[in-house]
């Protein structure tokens, strides 16, 4: 499948999953809010240019904002993680091209530990930023701290469940490509 088609499909899938499944499950506790839609941004190919990554991040956030009636909130957080993604990838992946063989970030492409760090850092950025924006408007600081930890934990848990349950068939990049 073409990369573009696959990613458009993923975009629709993740937004729908977030809006119609995760946002609709009965709340377990007020601190446990499952969020997974930004995994779309984490799974974008390595080769994508940094500018387009930012634009896609903005659109992804805005698409979800339409559903939650919070114009700009998720968009800001998605732009933030889209901006920091290349830096974190560069730190976690050795520059040696022999290790840079797969087209997308995944546990297989990066190794479990670097991938876990990658997911964890970007989840913390995403949730921390959104909850900070929420804190500026209303709320208290202790709630903010607990929510950052709990939503990040539940997101990372969901992402790894997804990773284990639905292994992606990843293209192996050859030198000719």
């Amino acid at each position, binding site marked *: 499948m073409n990369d573009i088609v696959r990613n458009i499909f993923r975009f629709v899938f993740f937004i729908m999953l977030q809006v119609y499944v995760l*946002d609709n499950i009965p709340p377990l506790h007020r601190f446990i809010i499952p969020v997974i839609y930004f995994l779309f941004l984490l799974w974008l190919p390595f080769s994508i240019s940094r500018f387009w990554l930012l634009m896609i991040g903005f659109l992804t956030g805005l698409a979800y904002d339409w559903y939650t009636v919070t*114009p700009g909130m998720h968009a800001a957080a998605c732009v933030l993680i889209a901006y920091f993604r290349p830096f974190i990838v560069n730190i976690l992946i050795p520059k040696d091209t022999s290790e840079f063989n797969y087209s997308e970030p995944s546990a297989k492409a990066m190794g479990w530990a670097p991938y876990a760090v990658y997911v964890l850092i970007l989840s913390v950025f995403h949730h921390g930023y959104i909850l900070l924006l929420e804190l500026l408007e209303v709320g208290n600081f202790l*709630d903010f701290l607990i929510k950052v930890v709990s939503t990040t934990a539940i997101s990372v848990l969901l992402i790894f469940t997804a990773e284990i349950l639905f292994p992606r068939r990843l293209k192996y990049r050859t030198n000719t490509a």
Partner: protein
Amino acid sequence: MRNVFLFIRRYFTFISFVLLQVLALSMLFRYNKYQRAVFLGKANEITGYFNSHYDNVDDYFHLKEENLRVHKMNDSLLNLMQANFIMVDTSSHIITDSVRYDTTQMVRKYLAKEAKVVSNSTTGMKNYFQINRGAKQGIKDNMAVINSDGSVAGQVVGVSENFSQVMSLLNVHTTVSAMMKKSRNNGRIEWDGQSPLYLTLRNIPKSDAVIIGDTVLTGINSYNYPPGWIIGTVSDIVEDKSTNFYVLRVRPSANFQNLQQVFVIENLQREEQVALDKATQKKVDELNKRKQ
């Protein structure tokens, strides 16, 4: 000049990052009525389309509860019917008034329209739900929304052609004028953004003998909400020694997790009331100016 271009080229990603952040944050914080209408107007039609398709399926999972609520509402209306009451005095009899229209001039103030909730949220701090009626069906901003069992659910804040966004009571920006059913004391309902199971009622004076289980209704001080609809029942009384007012925790009687069929209630005299309010304020301001 060349250096400027070089600078822009070098930091192009960073500059676009900053610009996108500014754009997103200005959307979030400097968000006036007009921008909101544009944002919601376009988005509402798109999200509404998907939401109503999803809702078609989701409906089947709530039929039983919905049925029960409607049945109870019907029951309460049935008991109001004229046929339930009889004359016990045998010397009197019913006379049908020959004047066709009510000469005491009863004027309709509130008009209810039915609507269906197509999407709903209860997990955030600012919860909204979307209903499948919009400007084309005569929905306007600030109309009250009431659940099928007669309990208050929220207030319309954004309208597009065929859909509207409703700010649920579970929204930190919500304030509803409320009164105690027994004493008719007025207060206001808020939500602290924590548990979706409890609202907060303030401004009820301590002279009022509130007990747990008292009913809280919508108050008479609101232009948006019709008075006398149930909001919830008092579930906890928080002692606050520093004021003369209670802080009451109220258990809402609407179950916000499964709002399905709702009524949108329009105050037909709202514009007149608001205009009067503004005119009065203007006059007061002018008087104050003259005094100075």
